[in-house]
């Protein structure tokens, strides 16, 4: 055998052996056995964050955001998955797979709002203040509303000249809990517009047409498509965190109280106060019924809010072992307690105390769980309070009157013009808690209860138009003030909040007080592009012409020089 070939083979074999040998060392050093799970991409940002946080404690968790249905399926089959994450329980008709042969339990892991992230340009600037009502949203995703200047959308966004651009709804191509929760909301509330019922495969809905819709896999795939610069006019449903991370705006959704709200942590917390949790022990223990959320009369409610769940094994089946149970219980315990701290920053909403309590009780059912360490009192969760109420929901800011469905065109507040991350992550409620502002017609001051309860890390962006006569007393910001200080975590700094004057023509920067005239024509962008090409070509032309004029004499000269 030639030496080189032999060498190659030996190297390959040695490499494999070495790798096999390597593994035993770290495995023994860990007190925790690594565990593997897959599922919900809706909750994946939170789970990924927890996974990264527990590494230093020696807990190694592998998580693949393959989608809820894939998670439920993977957990049911084979030995690969030790847990699953899903937004929907097993056995929902036509939506999720049948319950598996192995014993399992649901544990709520995080709450959040399914946000409508969009990519839209108005007057050469990214539009960030879209308001949509349920029927309009259902119409968009059912394919009956096809243009952004549709009268239905225009009626909800008075004073904004939305372009006659095609609406491109971006949906999930894989089996998805986001799709299931979103379609359930539409089916329950606007069944006349949305005819597909609750589904987890959007592509199986009769309304799905590749000419109108775009389908991508995973919440990240949907958000990734919307976030591409060329895909103007697209709107997709994803967890709020994806929009926050990519710096894209989300639509304010109309709730039953007649207010347009954002899926902020507090709004979701308020909404989920009305969620009915199945408390009877059984296979559906702790699953959610969101009918109450949809019709909640609280003005702060964000209607498409829901919980996401871990699916954990309760018996040693499918390759699950006690050491794995120890890791899993430690991980879930972290997620339910300390992990909830970061939920608002990420774009989720922390769990309330009753669900954490119930969840921790479920953790004890995981074989191999260290039950002694599980103590609700040691839980460091931002929603907990001394009297057992949900701090976040209690302190949630009330929306501005400008976000009321009856608000006039002049009452438009712009949101951060760049949709910049710092502004969005600075705290929940930065966009909907814009302080009081009297309109030109002299309507009453607004947001009465909002600023007085600015605690719990909720910065209040108080603002008043430069020309305003009086500012809302409650906002704590004087006339012409920029960002009101929020008691708690960050202030709403960083984000440039532009405010539209009552005449609807001038945009003002509250930081500088500078006002700029808004361009009126929205249909400038593509034309601009054409002229850019031709301008570029014209320059090229001039260059070529010069070359043509100069080249022959130069050639002649050089040839003469060569001859002489």
């Amino acid at each position, binding site marked *: 055998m030639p030496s080189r070939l032999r060498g190659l083979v030996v190297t390959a074999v040695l490499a494999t052996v070495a790798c096999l040998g390597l593994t035993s060392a770290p495995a023994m050093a860990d007190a925790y056995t690594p565990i593997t799970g897959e599922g919900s991409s809706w909750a994946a940002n939170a789970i990924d964050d927890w996974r990264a946080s527990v590494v230093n404690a020696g807990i190694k968790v592998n998580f693949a955001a*393959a989608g809820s249905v894939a998670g439920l399926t993977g957990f049911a089959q084979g030995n690969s998955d030790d847990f699953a994450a899903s937004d929907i329980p097993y056995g929902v008709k036509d939506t999720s797979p049948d319950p598996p042969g192995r014993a399992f339990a649901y544990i709520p892991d995080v709450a959040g709002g399914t946000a409508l992230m969009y990519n839209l340009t108005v007057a050469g600037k990214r539009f960030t203040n879209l308001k949509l009502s349920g029927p309009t949203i259902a119409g968009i995703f059912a394919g009956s509303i096809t243009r952004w200047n549709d009268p239905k959308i225009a009626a909800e966004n008075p004073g904004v000249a939305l372009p006659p651009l095609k609406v491109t709804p971006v949906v999930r191509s894989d089996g998805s809990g986001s799709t299931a929760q979103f379609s359930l909301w539409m089916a329950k509330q606007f069944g006349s517009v949305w005819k597909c019922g609750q589904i987890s495969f959007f592509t199986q809905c009769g309304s799905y047409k590749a000419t109108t819709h775009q389908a991508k896999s995973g919440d990240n795939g949907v958000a990734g498509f919307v976030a591409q610069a060329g895909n103007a006019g697209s709107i997709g449903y994803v967890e709020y965190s994806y929009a926050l991370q990519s710096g894209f705006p989300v639509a304010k959704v109309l709730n039953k109280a007649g207010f347009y709200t954002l899926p902020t942590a507090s709004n979701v917390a308020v909404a989920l106060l009305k969620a009915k949790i199945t408390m009877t022990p059984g296979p559906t223990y702790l699953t959610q019924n969101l009918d109450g959320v949809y019709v909640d009369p609280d003005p702060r409610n964000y209607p498409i809010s829901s919980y996401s769940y871990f699916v954990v094994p309760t018996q040693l089946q499918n390759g699950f072992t006690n050491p794995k149970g120890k890791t899993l219980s430690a991980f879930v315990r972290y997620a339910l307690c300390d992990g909830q701290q970061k939920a608002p920053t990420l774009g989720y909403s922390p769990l309330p105390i009753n669900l954490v309590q119930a969840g921790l009780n479920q953790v004890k059912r995981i074989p191999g769980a260290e039950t002694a360490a599980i103590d609700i009192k040691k839980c460091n969760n931002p929603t907990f309070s001394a009297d057992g109420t949900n701090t976040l929901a209690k302190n949630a800011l009330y929306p501005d009157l400008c976000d009321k469905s009856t608000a006039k065109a002049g009452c438009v507040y712009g949101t951060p013009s760049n949709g910049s991350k710092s502004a969005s992550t600075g705290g929940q409620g930065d966009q909907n808690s814009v302080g009081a502002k009297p309109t030109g017609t002299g309507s009453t001051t607004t947001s009465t209860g909002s600023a007085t309860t600015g605690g719990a890390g909720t910065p209040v962006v108080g603002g008043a138009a430069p020309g305003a006569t009086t500012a809302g007393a409650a906002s704590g910001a004087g006339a012409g003030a920029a960002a009101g200080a929020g008691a708690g975590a960050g202030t709403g700094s960083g984000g440039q909040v532009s405010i539209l004057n009552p005449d609807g023509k001038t945009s003002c920067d509250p930081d500088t007080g500078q006002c700029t005239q808004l361009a009126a024509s929205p249909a400038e962008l593509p034309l601009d592009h054409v002229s850019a090409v031709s301008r570029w070509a014209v320059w090229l032309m001039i260059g070529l012409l010069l070359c043509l004029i100069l080249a022959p004499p130069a050639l002649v000269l050089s040839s003469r020089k060569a001859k002489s």
Partner: protein
Amino acid sequence: MGLAIELDDAPAAEDRPRRIKLVRDTPDKIFRGVATGSGVVVLSIMLLVGVFLSVRAFQALKRAGLSFLTTRAWEPDAGHFGVAAVLTGTILIAFVAVLIAFPLSTATSLYITQYAPDRMRSLLVSVIDLMAAIPSVVYGLWGFFFLQAEVAPVAAWISRHFGWIPLFRVDGVQKDDPLPSMTVFTGSTLIAGLVVGMMITPVVTSIMREVFSQVPIGEREGAFALGATKWGVIRSVVLPFGKGGMIGGTMLGLGRALGETIAVYMIITPVFAVQPHILQSGAISVSSLIALHFAEASPFGLSALMAAGLTLFLLTLMINFAASSVVARSRSGASS
């Protein structure tokens, strides 16, 4: 001693052909045993794959029956599934790919063998071979992030001016839209086909180049001596000689194009309908169907996916065998 020939003592009566007996020594026997053994192992692996796929696929096929070929939807757990849409989509994408790859690789291989200076030639060969080795996910990245944005305006232009040809029609686009949306043109068969075409071009090119370089020098020089231009020589000598190789190489490329997964999966917007409008958003292929649904497939769903995979495999197999027989029968292929 490896070979020993033992001669039988012939009975002197007449000359009969001698019986030749082969006796191998032990190392040779071991070698032959090991070689045959590995042949058997490989054969059993291959047969295992084939038989397993067929058996699992048969479960699904039994339930679907003939409707497997005519159903467009893919809802295996509802018993409503078939390859009508995915197979058409696969073939359309591969068709576009070959449409791109064939002229490009013909031009490139002609350039390499007939036009390029010597130094350029070896460089080009290396570059093309390198291109064949670039992972498909990289082509996918390029297609999704770069090509898509570049091609969409062209597709828009084509659909606006040639929309009356059914192939180029795009539904839901008004002719005089003041603000046309580019999203209608993303994730289309055309873009997926373009990317796959770029992936198979190097493969096809290297086969064609091999064939063109075997053109008998006497015939070429004869043509030149008769006063033919370079194109004349190519048309009357090179192309007729390399015809078999061109067809065979293209068909091999077609086989690759049919099975391509990741680049297609990254680009397309899946649609479960027969969608012959190549400029319009929405396409599907068998392999991207598998990539899309394997994770959430029930055991029966997995069988259905295997049935789809088997269909694709058989299609590719047919094309590959046809390609190799075309190459073998052609004048250029006889020597290779």
